[in-house]
C-alpha cells in the first residue's frame, strides 16, 4: 500500500512537471477541451471533447448547479412549499419551495457527472501530452484511423466496459449512493417533501439501532433486534435443513443397487423447473386458512397466520416449505459431487473393513463439506436475503402488535421489513436505508470470507 501511495505522489509530481513543459496546444486544451486536438488536425476527437465540455457547462448552468448549490448550503432545502392568499386576485398563490428529495437525488447525479467529466478532462490532457511527446520524438500525431484501430486493440477494454458500466452507474451506483445518504437524514412519513422537508441528522438513525426498551411505543432498537434474531435463526435453519436433507436424499438416490435413479431425480427436480413465485403462491393458497390442506386434514389451523406462541406455527411452516423449495437444488448439486468422489477412497475404506456409516462420516461427509463449504456460506447469505419465500408465503405477517412496532411483522426478515418500510403508506426511508446498510455489512463480511478462500479468485490464470 505504502509503495503504491509513493508511486501515486511521484506520478502527480511528474504530471505537473510535464504540464509545465507542455506545448501551447496542451495548455489551451486544459481550458477548452479538444482545442489542442483540433489544432493538430484530430478533428473528430477534438470536436467530441469540445462538445462534451459545452454540454457539461450547459448542464451545470441550467440544471445541476442549482441543486448542488442548495446541497452545499448545508440543509436539504430551506423553503417549504406553501400557499399564500393573494388579495388582488383573490386566490391562493402556490409558492413552489425546495424539495429535499430532488435536491439530494439531483445532487448525487450531478456529482457523478462532475466526476465523469473530470475523468474525461484527464483523458483529454493525457492525450495532448502524448501528442507533445510524439512531436518531440519527430513522429506525427495519430490519425483518426490509428485511434480507431487502437480502440479495437490496446484500448479495447474501454469499448467493452463502457456500456455495462454505464448501466451499472445509472441503475445501481447512483441509486445506492442516494439511499446510503438517506440513512443520514430524517426522511420518513413525517418529512415527506414537498409538503415537509427533510434534513441531515448525522448518525442519529444508527444510534436508534442501539436504543432498546419499551417506553410507550416499542423502540426501533428492540424491534430491530427481534427481526435480526429471527433473520439469523431462519437463515441457519433454512440453510442447514436444506443442505443435510438434500445430501441424505442424494446419497440414497446415488446408492449403488438403487434403481430408477433418473426417475427419482426427476421427481424432485420438477419443483426447480416451475418458477419460484408460482410454487410459492400455490403453497400460500394451499396453506391458507380456507386452503386445501385444512380441507384434507379436517383441521382449522391458520398455518401462515397463527400468532400464538410468538407466531411459532407460521415460522415452522415457512421453514418446511423452504425445504420443499430448496432441497431439489441441493440434490442436484450433491449428485454431481458424489459422482466425483474418487472411488479409490471408498474402496480402500471398504477393504479396511469400514461399514457404510463409517464411510459416510469419515469420507463422504468431510469430502462434501470440503467441496461445498463456500457454497454453504453463499446459501446462508442468500437466505438472509431470501425475500421471495417470506414475502409470497406470509408477506412478513402475521401482524403481532404486542411484539412489534415500526411496521415490522412476526415473520419479517430484514429484507422484507426494508421493503415494507419503503413501500408502505407511512414510509420510513431513513430506517429502511439503515437496515439496508446492516444487511450489506452482514452479507459483505460473509461473502468476503468465501471469496478470499475460493481458489478461483486467486488462481484465475491456472487453466490458461
Amino acid at each position, binding site marked *: 500500500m505504502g509503495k503504491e501511495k509513493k508511486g501515486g505522489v511521484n506520478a502527480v509530481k511528474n504530471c505537473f512537471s510535464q504540464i509545465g513543459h507542455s506545448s501551447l496546444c496542451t495548455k489551451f486544451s486544459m481550458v477548452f477541451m479538444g482545442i489542442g486536438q483540433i489544432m493538430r488536425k484530430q478533428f473528430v476527437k477534438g470536436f467530441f471533447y469540445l462538445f462534451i465540455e459545452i454540454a457539461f457547462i450547459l448542464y451545470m448552468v441550467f440544471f445541476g448547479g442549482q441543486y448542488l448549490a442548495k446541497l452545499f448550503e448545508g440543509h436539504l432545502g430551506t423553503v417549504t412549499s406553501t400557499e399564500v392568499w393573494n388579495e388582488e386576485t383573490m386566490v391562493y398563490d402556490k409558492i413552489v419551495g425546495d424539495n429535499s*428529495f430532488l435536491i439530494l437525488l439531483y445532487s448525487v447525479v450531478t456529482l457523478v457527472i462532475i466526476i465523469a467529466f473530470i475523468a474525461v478532462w484527464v483523458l483529454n490532457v493525457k492525450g495532448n501530452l502524448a501528442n507533445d511527446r510524439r512531436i518531440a520524438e519527430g513522429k506525427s500525431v495519430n490519425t483518426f484511423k490509428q485511434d480507431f484501430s487502437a480502440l479495437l486493440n490496446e484500448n479495447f477494454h474501454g469499448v467493452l466496459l463502457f456500456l455495462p458500466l454505464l448501466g451499472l452507474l445509472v441503475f445501481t451506483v447512483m441509486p*445506492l449512493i442516494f439511499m446510503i445518504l438517506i440513512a443520514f437524514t430524517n426522511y420518513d412519513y413525517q418529512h415527506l417533501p414537498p409538503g415537509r422537508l427533510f434534513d441531515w441528522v448525522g448518525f442519529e438513525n444508527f444510534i436508534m439501532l442501539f436504543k432498546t426498551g419499551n417506553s410507550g411505543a416499542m423502540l426501533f432498537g428492540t424491534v430491530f433486534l427481534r427481526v435480526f434474531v429471527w433473520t439469523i435463526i431462519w437463515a441457519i435453519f433454512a440453510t442447514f435443513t436444506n443442505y443435510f436433507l438434500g445430501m441424505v436424499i442424494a446419497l440414497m438416490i446415488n446408492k449403488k443397487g438403487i434403481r430408477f435413479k433418473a426417475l427419482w431425480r426427476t421427481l424432485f427436480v420438477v419443483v426447480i423447473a416451475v418458477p419460484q*413465485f408460482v410454487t410459492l403462491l400455490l403453497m400460500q393458497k394451499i396453506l391458507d386458512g380456507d386452503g386445501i390442506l385444512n380441507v384434507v386434514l379436517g383441521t382449522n389451523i391458520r398455518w401462515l397466520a397463527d400468532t400464538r406462541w410468538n407466531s411459532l406455527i407460521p415460522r415452522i411452516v415457512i421453514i418446511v416449505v423452504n425445504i420443499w423449495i430448496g432441497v431439489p437444488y441441493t440434490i442436484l448439486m450433491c449428485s454431481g459431487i458424489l459422482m466425483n468422489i474418487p472411488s479409490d477412497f471408498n474402496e480402500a475404506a471398504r477393504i479396511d473393513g469400514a461399514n457404510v456409516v463409517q464411510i459416510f462420516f469419515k469420507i463422504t461427509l468431510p469430502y462434501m463439506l470440503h467441496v461445498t463449504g463456500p457454497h454453504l456460506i453463499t446459501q446462508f447469505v442468500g437466505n438472509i436475503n431470501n425475500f421471495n419465500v417470506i414475502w409470497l408465503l406470509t408477506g412478513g405477517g402475521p401482524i403481532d402488535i404486542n411484539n412489534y412496532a415500526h411496521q415490522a411483522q412476526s415473520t419479517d426478515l430484514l429484507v422484507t421489513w426494508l421493503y415494507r418500510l419503503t413501500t408502505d403508506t407511512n414510509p420510513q426511508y431513513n430506517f429502511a436505508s439503515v437496515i439496508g446498510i446492516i444487511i450489506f455489512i452482514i452479507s459483505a463480511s460473509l461473502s468476503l470470507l468465501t471469496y478470499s478462500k475460493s481458489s478461483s479468485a486467486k488462481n484465475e490464470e491456472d487453466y490458461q
Partner: protein
Amino acid sequence: MKAEAMINKDRVAAPKKKSVSMKVLNTASNALIYVILATLGVIWILPIVFLLYTSLRVTPNTGIINQLFPENLQLGFGNYVRLFSDTMFPRWLANTVIVAACSCLLSTMFVLMISYALSRLRFKMRKPLMNVLLVLGMFPGFMSMIAVYFILKAMGLLNSLFALVLVYSGGAALSYYICKGFFDTIPKSLEEAAILDGANRLQILLAVTVPLSKPIIIYTILTSFINPWCDFIFVNTIINDREKYTVALGLYKMINAEKFSFNENFTVFCAGATVVGAIIVALFMSMQKYYVEGVTSGAVKG
C-alpha cells in the same frame, strides 16, 4: 449414464465373498430406501399435481376449492379458455416475451463484454474494478429501488416496458462472475495465434472466444431470459398500468391484490401458472445440457 455403468461393474466385481446376512441387510436397507424415496417423491410432486388438477377443474359457479373431490366434479380446459379470453393474460404474456427477449439480448451482451474485458484484457484498473463490482453486488437490490423509481421518473420512463428492460439489463454486469470464470479457462495460446495472424481484439472475441463459449453464453441467455418471468417486485414498483404487467405480476395480483375475487380466480390462476411453468420447463429441458455445463464450468473449480 457413465457413472451408473461404473456402479454396475462395481457390483459385479466386489461382493462375491460377502456373507448371506450382509446380503439380507443390504436388501432390507435398499427396500427401506425405496419406501423413503417413494414417499418423499410423492410429497414433492403432490403440490405440482394439485396445481395441474386445479387448473383443469371446471367449477361452473364459484370456483371455491373447499373440497378436494366434490361430487359434481368436472374436468376440462375451461380455465385455460377463460385465462386467454377473459383476463389480460395474453397481453401480459406478450409483454413478458418482449421484455425477456430484449433484456436477455442486452444483458448477455453486457455480461460477455465485461467478462471478456476482465478475463482476457489487462489494464490498470482491472483488479480494483473487480473488487468494486463484488462489493456492489452485496447490497440488497430493494434498497435502491425507490431511487431507481425516481431516476426513471426523471427520465420520463415510468410505466413503460423499456424501463423494465433497462433495469433488468442495467445490473447485468454484476453477474459477470461465472462467465469470467469460464473465459479464464480458455487457453491463451489460441488468442496469441490469432494475434500473430493480425487479428484485432474484436475479431478475436467474435471469432475465437465466442464460438468456444457456447455453454456459458447459453447459460447467460437462459438465466437472463427467465429473470423477467419470475420478478414481480420491480415490475410492481415501476409499472401500475394493468396493460403493461408481466405475467409474474399479473398472476400475483390475480390472487393477491384483488382479495375479494380470490376464490373465483384461483382456478384461473392455476391455469396461468401452469402455462408459465410449462414455458419455463420447456426452456430448461431444451437447454438442460448447456445449463448444467455452464453452472459447473464457471463456478466449481475446487
